[in-house]
């Protein structure tokens, strides 16, 4: 875009900034292999990412069932402590990294970014294709750890040394931990290829007129999350390599002198807390890597289905950016009781509670978007409403845990388990579900079945809330997490057996509903009701493609030119209750749009 383009478009309404570079030819696939397997089209890559993430995610889901069975009905499914800890670990890691991160950035990022910014594809399609296959390899390595002697690692998803690489932990003295670390390293390599693509595409490949402040919030969320990931994952990468060296070559980055089961190990002088700093320097931003795309997407869902502009767009953009920045200076709130210098507590509690302010603003603006809207209770809207409640709940319990003194009694209890599932487990998943209902008509040209969708919604929302809301109260009593046998501790004021059984039943039902959802996807992609073009009457560019579903190259011969932001819903004076981003002002002469 030319330097004065923004002014041109705003002031002279119709004028269009000149092209900076000539349009480039796309790579056109010729064989089955290059079209569907080693495909360079971001849309196909997005779907490949999505399907792979969901496939391994199902392993994570079934793991959670098995854990819940052990907690509530011990003995019903035979398992020993080692297996239980392997389930916990694989469940946690799969859900956070291989499901949610891959799905939001690799899946939604690939599918939506080029379409929403008005590009024909990612800027580096070949690297993009390689990125997926490297991710696929990471998943294979992860899955292979189930089949090695000793099984996968049971170190907890936090992989804290010395425990992670010593013999008291399942997989600690075998291949389990090695494969986990290798898989993560491969994941980071694959992600970096994809991530650079997403960032550069957003910065360089936007169509004419698409200024940064006209981007849909979905793109802002995914873009910022990707930037965070590019800074955060290297910390995990180096920590993983250092731990592998400690494990295989006997270095002592994280290993002090220790004596285990009467035997002195050869390490000396390393610091286990150093690992924790590296891990959480990745791990905290990771929370936002999952949350920011969800924030962005849900903003768009709410706006489209409430037929109203997102309230306070600029504030929303700044909130995303500020949250992203702050997320790098709060990591040690996961370490208040980890034995670091206690004075750090003051600093990290303060930064952590500061993050609450931009986060709260986002919540207010979602709710204020509903205010005086014209709300259609479609499935995407229902899931968005469920997201807001879940996220508010999980965000508020974060104020307990972030406030260092309150964290002391609560950390490492089920309160923490409830909190992080609400805020980074259930809330983002609800957004994912809502957005599948929203974009399915774009991807396949058909709607998902509404009746099945309603059942899916009710069971998922009520079910997941029933799982996690009561769980906080176990935490208040002091029920510690990562316990193979959950027993009636003497400090507990009331039996925990009944409530644990209730939670387990809720978890089984909630999980089962997801299979209904998958069934719905399979059936509807063939037999669903035809959707046609832009069925939700949305403003953003992904609905303005030449064909639906969009084909190779996305748009018609000419790329769309953008004249307005993505939220011109219910503009006074306009005939329709939406004006798409590529509608020139002359075509809606009576509309009194304020925002550009």
């Amino acid at each position, binding site marked *: 875009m030319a330097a004065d383009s923004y002014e041109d478009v705003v002031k002279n309404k119709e004028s269009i900034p000149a092209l900076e570079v000539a349009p480039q030819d796309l790579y056109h696939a010729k064989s089955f292999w290059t079209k569907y397997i080693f495909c360079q089209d971001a849309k196909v890559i997005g779907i490949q990412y999505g399907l792979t993430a969901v496939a391994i995610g199902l392993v994570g889901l079934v793991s959670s069932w098995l854990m819940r069975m052990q907690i509530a009905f011990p003995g019903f499914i035979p398992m020993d402590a080692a297996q239980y800890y392997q389930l916990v670990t694989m469940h946690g890691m799969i859900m956070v990294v291989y499901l949610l991160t891959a799905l939001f950035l690799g899946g939604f990022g690939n599918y939506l970014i080029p379409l929403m910014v008005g590009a024909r594809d990612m800027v580096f399609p070949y690297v993009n294709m390689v990125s997926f296959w490297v991710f696929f390899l990471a998943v294979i390595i992860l899955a292979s750890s189930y089949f090695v002697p000793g099984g996968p690692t049971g170190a907890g998803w936090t992989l804290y040394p010395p425990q992670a690489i010593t013999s008291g932990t399942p997989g600690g003295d075998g291949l389990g931990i090695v494969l986990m670390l290798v898989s993560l390293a491969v994941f980071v390599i694959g992600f970096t290829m994809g991530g650079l693509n997403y960032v550069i595409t957003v910065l360089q490949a936007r169509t004419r007129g698409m200024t940064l402040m006209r981007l849909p919030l979905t793109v802002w969320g995914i873009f910022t999350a990707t930037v965070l990931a590019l800074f955060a994952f290297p910390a995990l990468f180096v920590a993983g390599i250092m731990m592998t060296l400690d494990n295989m070559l006997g270095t002592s980055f994280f290993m002090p002198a220790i004596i285990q089961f009467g035997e002195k190990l050869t390490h000396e002088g390393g610091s286990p807390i150093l690992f924790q700093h590296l891990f959480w320097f990745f791990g905290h931003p990771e929370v936002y890597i999952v949350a920011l795309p969800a924030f962005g997407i849900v903003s768009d869902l709410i706006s489209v289905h409430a037929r*109203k502009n997102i309230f306070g767009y*600029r504030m929303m953009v700044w909130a995303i950016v500020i949250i992203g920045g702050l997320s790098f200076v709060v990591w040690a709130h996961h370490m208040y*009781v980890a034995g670091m210098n206690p004075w750090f507590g003051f600093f990290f509690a303060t930064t952590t509670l500061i993050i609450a302010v931009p986060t709260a603003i986002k919540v207010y603006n979602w709710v204020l978007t509903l205010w*005086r*809207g014209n709300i259609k209770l479609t499935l995407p809207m229902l899931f968005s409403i469920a997201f807001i409640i879940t996220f508010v709940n999980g965000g508020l319990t974060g104020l307990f845990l972030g406030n260092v003194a309150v964290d002391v009694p609560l950390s490492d209890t089920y309160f923490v388990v409830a909190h992080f599932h609400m805020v980074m487990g259930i809330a983002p998943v609800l957004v994912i579900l809502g957005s599948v209902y929203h974009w399915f008509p774009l991807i396949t040209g058909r709607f998902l079945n509404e009746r099945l969708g309603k059942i899916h919604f009710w069971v998922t929302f009520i079910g997941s809330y029933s799982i996690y809301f009561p769980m906080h109260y176990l935490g208040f009593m002091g029920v510690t997490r990562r*316990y193979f046998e959950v027993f009636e501790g003497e400090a507990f004021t009331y039996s925990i057996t009944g409530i644990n059984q209730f939670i387990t039943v809720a978890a089984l039902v909630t999980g089962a509903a997801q299979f209904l959802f998958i069934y719905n996807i399979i059936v509807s992609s063939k037999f669903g009701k035809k959707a046609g073009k832009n069925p939700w009457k949305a403003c953003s560019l992904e609905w303005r493609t030449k064909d639906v579903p969009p084909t190779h190259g996305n748009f018609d011969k000419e790329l769309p030119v953008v004249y307005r932001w993505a939220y011109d819903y219910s503009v006074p004076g306009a005939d329709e209750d939406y004006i798409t981003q590529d509608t020139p002002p002359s075509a809606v002469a009576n509309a009194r749009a304020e925002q550009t």
Partner: protein
Amino acid sequence: MFVVLLVLIVILGSVVFHMVSPWWWSEIASNWVGMDDTIILTFWITGAVFVAIGLFMAYCIWKFRYDKDKKAEYEPENSKLEWTLTILTTIGVIALLAPGLIVWNNFVTVPKGAYEIEVVGQQWGWMYRLPGKDGVLGTTSIKNIDDDNPFGLNTDDPYSLDDVLVDADDLHILIDRPLKLNLRALDVLHDFYVPQFRAKMDMVPGTITYYWFTPIKTGEYEILCAEYCGTGHYAMLGYVYVDEQKEYDEWVDEQMTFEEVLASNGKSDLIKIALNKKNDL
């Protein structure tokens, strides 16, 4: 419109659950009432926000439900409203943070008169060490650990000999006296946690961590390991007994000092070296 009902049920149901829940923290047995109070304060503030947002949302969903003859309002921004909300939120956050930091300040500042006990964690059990008559814990090293010296005390440290060694999962402590726990781990991370005391801190091999508290109620309390430490984590339990002075003294008398342990293992030569060092002081 069922969804309006759903939102109401979830919001109000949460409040009702909170009020009737029999699952609540046990009566506190330490001085950390400030932690409980901060939680209660946080509950009031966050609870109010939760209910307010939930009810407002239910109202909006009901009031502004779709009507094809109506149009939504077009109001991209309202900076006055946005700033008001920002400032109110900031005030709420400060109201939470300030008391929290005061309690934390108390938690990390050990009072002068506190006596010390060392807690040692290893897979998967506890051990304890009291400083003995001289009131000072002798220095230790992982290198010294063997069957005769499970704590790894430095035999040439004059403060070591009178240390009282408790190689068992149960600990006795004194009521109403501030106590500083020095936390040590021999193999992996552990965490010494008694729910009724509220306090916890990880034990990290390679360094010594600590926390302090004052027990305010006699009785028997269960210890739970709160940091994942391998396959036996869930079974790493024990008991703390909060005693009056008399019972406490009786218990201490039953335990062996390091000197006694060495003597019973026939290491009188080591005792001599240590005693000489002590005389040099």
